[in-house]
C-alpha cells in the first residue's frame, strides 16, 4: 500500500537535491507524459484520478483544466503563496522537494498546452525560492525545461516569481493581479475562473503547489491507481499540517479518509496526543477559515465530504489543536485579527466589519467587554456573511471576509460562558 506520494522523498536528508530526485523516480512522470501521452491523455488521467485541488477550495483539477477557454495563448500559474494560518505543507514541499514541484508544473503545462508558466512563491520563503530557482536552473541544464523538452515537440519556460507578503494573494485572481505588478486586489466575478480571463487577460490555470506535486506520480502510475486510494470524492493522499497544542506537531501524509481526527491528534504515529493532564477543548479541521470542531467530532475521517457533512471543511489540510489551557475568546480574537489585518480593503463589510470584530473581541479578552457585545459581534458577522451559515454567504468580492464569522460564531456558540466570565468578572477562566 502506498501512503506517501507528494511526501515520498521527504524522509531523505538530501531530498532537495537533483541526485536524490533522479535516484528516486524523478523525471519519469514528465518523460512518460511528453514521450508517450498526448496532452489530452494526461488531462484524462488527472480527471480519472479525481485529484482535488490542495489549496483550500478542493475543486477538481481535471475539471478546472477542462474549463480553459480555447485561445492561442494560455498561461499556467502555480500558487505557492501559502499563508493560511497553520498551513505549512507547501512550505515543506518547496523547500524539500523543489524538483518534484518543477516536474509537476511542467506536466501541468503540457496537459493544458501552456505558453508560459510562473511559479509564484510566497516572498517569505527565502530558502524555498532559492531551492526552486536551483531546481529550475538544473531542469534547463538537462533539457527538462526550455525548447523541445526531452526531445519532444513541447517547449515551455518556467519563471519564478516572489510574492511580497500579502495573505490575500493566495486568492487566485488577487495572485494574478500581483503577478501583473499591482496591489493584490481580488477581481470582481464573473468571470468566476481565470480559466476564462486570467493573466494579461488570457485564459490562465492557477494550481496549488501540492496539487501539481501529485502529477508526476499520477502520470507514472495512472489515474486509476490514485483513485484506488481514499474513497468517494477524496482520492489519493494529503499532506496534513498538524499544529497547536499537540505533543508532536508536524506534517503527516495520509491516505484520504483512512484515519480520523482522533488518530491524527492522538495516535503515536502522528500527533501523540495532548500534554499530560490536558483535555481537548476544540480543533479546527482545515485552516482558520473553517468552523471549529469539538471533541464529539473526533471520529470523523479525514475526507473532503466527511468533514463537509459535519459542517466544516478540510480546506488547506491544516489541523489546529486547542487544549483546555487555551482561551477560546483569545483564539477567536487572534483569528479575527488576522483577517482584519489581511483584508485588502476593497469591500466595506470585510474591511470595516473585520476591524470592528477585532476591536470588540480584544476588549472582551482584556476584560473590558459588555454583555451586548456578543449580539453585536453576531450582528457584524451577519453583515459580512448573511445568515452566518456554512458554507458562508458572501457580500464581498472574495471569500476573505466570509472567513471571519466561522471562528467567531463557533466560539460564541460553544463557549458563551467563557465570554460571560470575561465580561462580568473581567478575568479569563483559563489563565
Amino acid at each position, binding site marked *: 500500500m502506498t501512503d506517501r506520494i507528494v511526501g515520498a522523498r521527504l524522509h531523505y536528508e538530501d531530498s532537495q537535491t537533483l541526485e536524490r530526485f533522479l535516484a528516486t523516480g524523478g523525471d519519469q512522470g514528465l518523460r512518460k507524459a511528453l514521450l508517450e501521452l498526448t496532452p489530452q491523455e494526461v488531462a484524462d488521467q488527472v480527471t480519472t484520478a479525481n485529484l482535488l485541488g490542495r489549496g483550500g477550495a478542493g475543486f477538481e483539477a481535471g475539471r478546472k483544466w477542462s474549463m480553459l477557454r480555447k485561445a492561442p495563448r494560455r498561461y499556467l500559474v502555480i500558487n505557492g503563496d501559502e499563508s*493560511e*494560518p497553520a498551513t505549512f505543507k507547501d512550505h515543506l514541499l518547496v523547500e524539500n522537494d523543489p524538483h518534484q514541484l518543477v516536474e509537476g508544473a511542467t506536466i501541468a503545462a503540457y496537459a493544458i498546452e501552456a505558453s508560459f508558466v510562473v511559479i509564484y512563491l510566497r*516572498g517569505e520563503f527565502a530558502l524555498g525560492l532559492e531551492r526552486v530557482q536551483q531546481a529550475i*536552473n538544473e531542469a534547463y541544464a538537462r533539457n527538462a525545461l526550455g525548447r523541445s523538452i526531452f526531445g519532444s515537440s513541447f517547449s515551455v519556460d518556467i519563471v519564478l516569481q516572489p510574492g511580497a507578503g*500579502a495573505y490575500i494573494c493566495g486568492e487566485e485572481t488577487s495572485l494574478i493581479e500581483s503577478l501583473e505588478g499591482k496591489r493584490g486586489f481580488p477581481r470582481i466575478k464573473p468571470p468566476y475562473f481565470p480559466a476564462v480571463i486570467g493573466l494579461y487577460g488570457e485564459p490562465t490555470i492557477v494550481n496549488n503547489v501540492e496539487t501539481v506535486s501529485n502529477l508526476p506520480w499520477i502520470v507514472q502510475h495512472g489515474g486509476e491507481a490514485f483513485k484506488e486510494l481514499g474513497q468517494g470524492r477524496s482520492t489519493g493522499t494529503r499532506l496534513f499540517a498538524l499544529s*497547536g497544542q499537540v505533543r508532536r506537531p508536524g506534517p503527516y501524509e495520509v491516505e484520504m479518509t483512512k484515519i480520523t481526527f482522533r488518530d491524527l491528534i492522538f495516535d503515536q504515529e502522528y500527533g501523540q496526543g495532548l500534554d499530560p493532564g490536558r483535555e481537548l477543548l476544540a480543533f479546527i479541521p482545515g485552516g482558520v477559515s473553517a468552523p471549529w470542531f469539538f471533541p464529539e467530532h473526533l471520529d470523523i475521517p479525514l475526507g473532503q465530504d466527511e468533514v463537509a457533512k459535519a459542517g466544516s471543511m478540510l480546506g488547506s489540510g491544516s489541523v*489546529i489543536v486547542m487544549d483546555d489551557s487555551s482561551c477560546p475568546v483569545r483564539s477567536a480574537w487572534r483569528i479575527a485579527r488576522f483577517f482584519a489585518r489581511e483584508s485588502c480593503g476593497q469591500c466595506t463589510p470585510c474591511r470595516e466589519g473585520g476591524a470592528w470584530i477585532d476591536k470588540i473581541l480584544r476588549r472582551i479578552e482584556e476584560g473590558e467587554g459588555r454583555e451586548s457585545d456578543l449580539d453585536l459581534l453576531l450582528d457584524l458577522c451577519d453583515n459580512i456573511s448573511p445568515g452566518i451559515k456554512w458554507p458562508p454567504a458572501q457580500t464581498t468580492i472574495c471569500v476573505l471576509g466570509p472567513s471571519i464569522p466561522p471562528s467567531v460564531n463557533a466560539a460564541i456558540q460553544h463557549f458563551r460562558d467563557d465570554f460571560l466570565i470575561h465580561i462580568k468578572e473581567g478575568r479569563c477562566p483559563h489563565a
Partner: protein
Amino acid sequence: MARFSDEMLSRAEELVALYPDPRSATIPLCHLAQEQDGYVTNEAMAHIAELVGSTAAEVQGTASFYDMLKLEPVGRYVIGVCTNIACMLRGAYELLENAEEVLDVPVGATTQDGLFTLEEVECIAHCDQAPAAQVNYRYFGPLDRQSFESLVSKLRSGELNEEVPPHGTLIRIRREAPAVIPMEEIDRNRAGEAE
C-alpha cells in the same frame, strides 16, 4: 545611490526580460531595490517605473500594499515574531514580550545601533516549530527566551552571516537558463502543430 547601480541594473533588466509584460517585474524589482538600499526608496520606485513602463505612483501603489516591502529604513536584521494562532497556542506572545526586552525596543521599532527591527508577523508557515520567528525571512523555531537571546547574540557576532544574508529575498537567486522563448515562437509552433 538609490537608483539601481550598474550591477543591480543588469540584474533588473534580466528580470524584466523574463515576462510577456514587463510590469510583472515590479515586485521582483522592489525586492532588488530593498537588497541594494535596505528599503525601497522614492528614487528606486521612479527607476523601477522607467524599467517596467509604469509610473512612480503606480510602483508606490503596489509597493505600499505588501508587508515585506519597506518604504522606510529598517534594521540590518528584520526579526518577525509570528503570533498567529498556531504560534500563539505555544507561547508566541510571551516570546514577543521577551524579544522586546532582549532587544530593548517595542514592536515596530529599530534598535539604536540600526541592527535589529522587531516586527509582529502573521503566520509564516513554520507552525510545527512554534513559536517561530523569521530573521530576514530565514526561519527559526521553536524559540524560548534563552534560544532567542542566543539567536540575537549570534546575529550580532556574525556567526550566522552564512545562514542569514542581508535583507532582500532575491539576494542569492540567479536564474541560469537560456533567454525565455518569445511568445510569438510558441504561438507559431502551436499553429504549426494544429495544421
